[in-house]
């Protein structure tokens, strides 16, 4: 009996009139936890009842404390008939379970009813007394802190980063149980809310257990999602990054050093670390060594000795299964492992291997974090993603309860192998998502392949803060992460490499795509901007397997096109890197929607992007005037954008120093040979100015449309910037104006016979118009930036497209927006330049000799020089997981865009393969006994709501999807907010139609989040996100239903200028305030 929960019901206010006769209400309250229920007295005839109840005490296991919410039901007493429920409040008491967080929950909570919405408020005080439990076999994980924030929380220091944790729990969806036919919608909704909150409580507890096992004390970047699979069940799954966090004394600077502890045995660490410590300077780890040997030499050992990279290489190139690939891949470092031996000596290799080993021993070296302490991230390879189409099996299969686990496991393995193919040992900025339509489910995972600093990989190295800078030397902080982690001789895809424009010592790709935030130390030119690629693809309606096959056939083409769009738009804005890339593919009955969002930026370490060159398929195919007019428009747009985003990269004395960029001639040759494209390429002038040009070929109307759509994207109006990342590249001087908002738009496609083109246009307009609306609505905040623009698309019904956006608008000081100018790149001798020049040739020879399929002609005429597209380093993979009865492992097609020809052939093969495949994917609707045993008693959590402070004023609670609030410092994290609400109506018209209904629901959700935070004593929510917004309507029946899941971190933040005192007053004021409040 390790815990005592105490609750006191103080008062109510603004209650609804429940008795028409008297226009009053006889209210009383039921307080329930687990199976124990208490009741207050009836407070007769009052809309503002004062109960001032005794303390209701529940003596419970801490396991229950974690899973269950406190459930408060307000009822209207009726002498003659059944008591009417007014509404409920669910209070998640998790924040009371760890010592540093809130000590009391006290305040006004909105009373919520799933049919009527908020109906008055209730003032409640909740406390928990925890007893120490030394039971080693405990099932609870009290004390493990959870953070939604995807960076190290502000007032903490990460002493160790343990790595990836994941868990999922499955249950039947109450909405689909037989009993749902006979119960009221209210009962059904409440059952669902309760179940989900219970499941997320359980999930959190289980993850907590894993963290404790790893020796951590917190989960950062906690991402929890629901899959409403319909009849096959309800899945709640979560991923996160286990850490050991130390609270910084509030006075000290927020110093977030991180040491990575990838779960190696402490013993091995212990014996390794002394040697490291002894020779710190040597073990400075950097891939292609900066003072690297001349390339020819370098190539030799690699080719003579078995290239460590080769086993994994086919995986990127071809469709080999990720599973086998994994087993084959040796633990050595990629590429550099071989070459490093030459000069850095065995120690270096050893260290690298240690790192590698350490990480590899973790099942998944994944990190859900998106920003890292300086020095943590050594190199970034590029985006890795994997998708898999699964059939949700309706058959309840208790013998295989782990199906969902297995599905995700597969995907993660793929991701891991892709990362490896990029020469990386870790994946950062990792996230997972699903899209479900009927019985088809697309599972997606993506992240950024990266190499992490090995110094962070061991234990006992708790104080490297001061020594940090010493290590950064060889790989300068503002460009090091751009340096390629893979071996340029065995590149996983064809890419144009140049020497880093910063340090001139190491290779960088010409374009970099990542899912993480822009590292704070990165040198950028100008400002960033939101770049979106949008795509619709019609698909025939089909059932089951045929449907799944059709979808998986479409996926690669969608990804390809999204990428082409992203790349074009990036070039059009004269930028060379994408951060925060998030690609969502959403499935509907008759179409697929793809939306890729990212923040484009100009990294000064990377070469300047070339322009975009328009070319007809054959000269005279389209009038050259037409082409030149388009060309002019594009050039103009690029010029305008350069101006707009203030991209004035420091001029490089290219000629003088010897440009690392090969002459255009060379390049074109290079690419031709690489992609085996036809000769007509040589006809084109590939150079655009001095830079390499990006060629768009106009060979049919589609291409013209594409180009038009490229130019459609309107730049934000003056005074606005936008991004989808935590930091806005180029703006850091925020002022205090913050406005978080959520917007939902649903479009009905009336036209039955739409084309892909038409749909694309509609979808693009939808997104663009949304942005325009935001700019207009927020115009009073100018100058301002829309940050963390998070678009979610869905196809809730046939002919409906839903876009949900959550973002924050923040004001900034216009006067000081100048960013630090990029450092002048180091001058290298001409000798080196010469060396560098040889590279591409070498590379070219190498890659052409490699086993590229020459199926170039398949590669559609759209973009023949597809090789140019390659640099984005995206590895796509799909599992052909339509399911299979045999035990066959999923075929993973991992493809790079490097050579379209190559890719196509791969896919064709794959499709063929798939045709004969595969039936797996069963289902686990978890059987009650094993998994759910703790669930049985029934409990719930997470559904709660609230707000504090009676009297006349309400605490202002700020909300933001970012991890910080400008101008303030977070002094305390109070716990995670994770709430799930259902709202339903049978009087849709009376509530103002669908818009009125959803508008008030979203406002209610905000209100409940704010109330809960205020009751915890907080004044802000950071890392807020709306994970789910499922809207269903039936206008004919005048009905609608909506499900919303939101999460975030409740915090206390104080103005940066304020002293500590204000914090403590805020805290005590809260407690005291609500106490006195109760008396009023």
């Amino acid at each position, binding site marked *: 009996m390790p815990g005592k929960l105490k609750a006191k019901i103080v008062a109510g206010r603004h209650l609804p009139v429940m008795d028409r006769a008297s226009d009053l209400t006889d209210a009383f309250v039921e307080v329930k936890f687990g199976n124990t229920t208490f009741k207050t007295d009836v407070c007769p005839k009052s809309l503002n009842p004062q109960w001032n109840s005794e303390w209701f005490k529940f003596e419970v296991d801490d396991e229950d404390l974690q899973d269950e919410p406190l459930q408060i039901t307000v009822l209207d007493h009726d002498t003659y008939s059944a008591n009417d429920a007014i509404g409920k409040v669910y209070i998640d008491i998790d924040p009371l379970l760890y010592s540093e967080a809130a000590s009391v929950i006290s305040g006004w909570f909105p009373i919520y009813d799933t049919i009527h919405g908020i109906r008055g408020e209730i003032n409640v005080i909740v406390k928990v007394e925890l007893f120490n439990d030394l039971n080693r076999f405990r099932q609870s994980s009290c004390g493990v802190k959870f953070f939604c924030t995807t960076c190290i929380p502000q007032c903490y220091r990460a002493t160790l980063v343990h790595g990836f944790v994941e868990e999922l729990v499955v249950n039947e969806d109450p909405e689909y149980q037989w009993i749902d036919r006979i119960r009221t919608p209210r009962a059904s909704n409440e059952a669902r809310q309760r179940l989900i909150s219970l499941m997320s409580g359980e999930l959190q507890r289980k993850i907590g257990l894993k963290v404790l096992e790893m020796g951590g004390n917190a989960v950062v970047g906690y991402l929890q999602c629901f899959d409403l699979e319909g009849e096959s069940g309800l899945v709640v799954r979560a991923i996160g990054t286990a850490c050991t966090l130390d609270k910084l004394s509030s006075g000290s600077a927020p110093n977030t050093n991180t040491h990575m502890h990838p779960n190696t045995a402490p013993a091995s660490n212990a014996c390794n670390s002394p040697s490291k410590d002894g020779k710190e300077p040597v073990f400075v780890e950097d891939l292609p060594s900066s003072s690297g040997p001349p390339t020819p030499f370098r190539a030799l050992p690699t080719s003579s000795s078995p290239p460590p990279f080769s086993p994994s290489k086919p995986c990127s190139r071809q469709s080999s299964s990720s599973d086998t690939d994994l087993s084959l891949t040796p633990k050595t470092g990629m590429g550099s492992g071989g070459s490093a031996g030459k000069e850095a000596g065995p120690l270096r290799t050893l260290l690298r291997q240690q790192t590698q080993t350490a990480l590899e021993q973790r099942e998944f070296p994944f990190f859900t974090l998106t920003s890292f302490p300086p020095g943590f991230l050594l190199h970034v390879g590029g985006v890795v993603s994997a998708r898999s189409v699964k059939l949700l099996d309706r058959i309840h299969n208790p013998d295989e309860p782990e199906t969902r686990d297995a599905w995700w496991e597969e995907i993660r393995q793929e991701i891991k192998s892709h990362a490896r193919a990029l020469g990386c040992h870790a994946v950062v900025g990792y996230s997972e998502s699903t899209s479900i339509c009927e019985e088809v489910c697309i599972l997606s995972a993506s992240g950024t392949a990266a190499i992490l600093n090995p110094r962070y990989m061991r234990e006992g190295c708790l104080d490297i803060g001061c020594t940090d800078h010493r290590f950064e030397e060889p790989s300068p902080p503002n460009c090091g992460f751009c340096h390629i982690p893979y071996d340029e001789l065995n590149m996983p895809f064809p890419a144009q490499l140049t020497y880093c424009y910063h340090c001139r010592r190491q290779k960088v790709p010409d374009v970099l795509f990542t899912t993480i935030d822009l590292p704070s130390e990165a040198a950028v030119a100008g400002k960033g901007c939101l770049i979106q690629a949008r795509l619709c693809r019609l698909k025939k309606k089909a059932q089951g397997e045929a449907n799944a096959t059709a979808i998986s056939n479409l996926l690669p083409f969608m990804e390809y096109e999204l990428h082409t769009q992203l790349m074009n738009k990036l070039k059009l804005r004269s930028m060379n890197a994408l951060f925060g890339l998030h690609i969502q593919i959403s499935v509907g009955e008759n179409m697929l929607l793809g939306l890729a969002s990212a923040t484009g930026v100009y990294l000064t370490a990377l070469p300047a992007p070339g322009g975009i060159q328009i070319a007809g398929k054959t000269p005279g195919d389209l009038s050259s005037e037409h082409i030149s007019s388009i060309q002019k428009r594009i050039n103009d747009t690029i010029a305008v954008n350069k101006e707009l985003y203030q991209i004035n990269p420091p001029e490089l004395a290219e000629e003088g120093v010897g440009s690392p960029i090969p002459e255009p001639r060379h390049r074109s040759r290079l690419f031709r040979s690489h992609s085996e494209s036809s000769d007509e390429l040589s006809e084109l002038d590939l150079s655009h100015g001095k830079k390499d040009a990006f060629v768009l070929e106009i060979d049919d109307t589609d291409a013209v449309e594409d180009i038009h759509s490229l130019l459609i994207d309107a730049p934000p109006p003056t005074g606005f910037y936008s991004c989808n990342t935590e930091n806005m590249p180029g703006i850091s001087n925020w002022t205090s104006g913050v406005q978080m908002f959520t917007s939902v738009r649903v479009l009905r496609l009336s036209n039955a016979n739409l084309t892909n083109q038409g749909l694309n246009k*509609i979808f693009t307009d939808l997104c663009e118009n949304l942005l325009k609306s935001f700019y207009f609505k927020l115009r009073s905040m100018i100058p301002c930036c829309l940050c963390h623009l998070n678009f979610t698309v869905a196809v809730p019904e046939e002919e409906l497209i839903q876009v949900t956006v959550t973002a924050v608008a923040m004001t900034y000081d216009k006067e000081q927006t100048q960013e630090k100018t990029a450092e002048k790149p180091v001058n290298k001798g001409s000798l080196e330049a010469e060396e560098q020049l040889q590279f591409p040739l070498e590379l070219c020879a190498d890659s052409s000799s490699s086993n590229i399929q020459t199926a170039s002609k398949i590669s559609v005429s759209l973009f023949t020089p597809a090789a140019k597209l390659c640099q984005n380093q995206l590895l796509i993979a799909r599992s052909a997981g339509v399911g299979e009865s045999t035990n066959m492992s999923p075929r993973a097609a991992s493809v790079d865009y490097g050579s379209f020809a190559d890719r196509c052939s791969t896919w064709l093969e794959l499709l063929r393969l798939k045709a004969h495949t595969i039936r797996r994917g069963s289902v686990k609707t978890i059987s009650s006994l094993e998994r759910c045993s703790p669930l049985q008693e029934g409990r719930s959590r997470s559904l709660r709501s609230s707000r504090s402070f009676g009297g006349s004023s309400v605490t202002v609670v700020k909300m933001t999807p970012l991890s910080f609030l400008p101008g303030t410092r977070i002094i305390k994290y109070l716990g995670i907010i994770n709430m799930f609400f259902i709202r339903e109506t049978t009087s849709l018209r009376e509530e103002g139609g669908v818009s009125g209904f959803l508008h008030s629901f979203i406002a209610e959700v905000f*209100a409940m989040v704010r109330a809960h935070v205020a009751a915890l004593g907080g004044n802000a929510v950071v890392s807020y996100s709306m994970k789910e917004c499922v809207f269903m309507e039936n206008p004919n029946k005048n009905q609608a239903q909506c499900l919303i899941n939101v999460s975030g971190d409740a915090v206390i933040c104080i103005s940066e200028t304020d002293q500590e005192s204000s914090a403590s007053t805020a805290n005590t004021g809260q407690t005291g305030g609500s106490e006195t409040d109760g008396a009023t």
Partner: protein
Amino acid sequence: MSVELDVFVGNTTIMDEEVYQLWLDGYTVNDAVKVRMEGGVMDECEASKDVLLSDTMDQYRTFQMCERLLHSPAKLANQLLFQIPPHRQIMLIERYYAFDDTFVREVLGKKLSKGTKKDLDDISTKTSVTLKSCRRQFDNFKRVFKVVEELKGPLVENIRQHFLLSDKLARDYAAIVFFANNRFETGKRKLQYLSFQDFAFCAGQLISNWTVGAVDNMVEDMDVDLDKEFLQELKELKILITDKDLLDQHKSLVCTALRGKTKVFIEMEGSFKNLSRGLINIAAKLTNTKDVRDFFIDLVEKFIEPCRSDRWSAADMKLYLTHYTNSAHILDTFKHQVVWDRYMGVVKSCIFKMYHD
């Protein structure tokens, strides 16, 4: 292809004051969009008509949701649904309770009943205030009336505290409530020239001088009714006109004081008895509810019109009334100085206010 659903919800509720005014004025969404387009807001952010429409719809919905709260403004401050900065709350309330003088002039002194509400279409046509806005204003009057009717203590203060209105607006509402409660006649042709502000001023005078609360604001009774005792005492003033000596004495005192100070002395002297009878008779009749209602029309008929037909200037009138009031104090046999001051103080300032074209 059509937008099925379109909402935008901010954590801090976004409200555009211009759109709020359009909403209050009863514009439909489409009309509001037109007005906004003409206002040139589109140029501000390269907005299109669709953007404007969507924005207007969002705001209208927000206002509709807020309206329930605005009905009891105290709730706005401690409700949880909308996070609205305090200064915005004040703006919302103040504007919601603001009214058109032309409209209020039409219903001033009328019973705030369903019957009157039915006539709102006519008033709407007459005043060219939209019916929707008329209804809001009328309901506001009624709501305030209903709340303060039951309350003790000073009227203006009650209104201000309950509806969180500015002092000015609270006074106006007090006037409206006071007029509605006492059913003062304001609609007669002869009173048409008076504006709401004229009446509001008079109401303020009456409230602060003639009600029970005026003497002792701790008393049980409330501010909306006239002090019955005082009205009874007013009958005593009749002596000023019934006692021939007193009347003559009063007249000569006033005339002595006025002589040479005004161009209309002759007229003043000639109409003194009539005017004095008029004012005293008004006072004496105020015990009748019916006559209370006619207070203003009586003032106009019995005093203002005769003066005006004699072409008194406002200054003349002021001079006359001042001396008329003060001279009564010198009358030895006149014992009702306190009542006289209380009566004349109000009448004087009312007439000052009402004496214009």
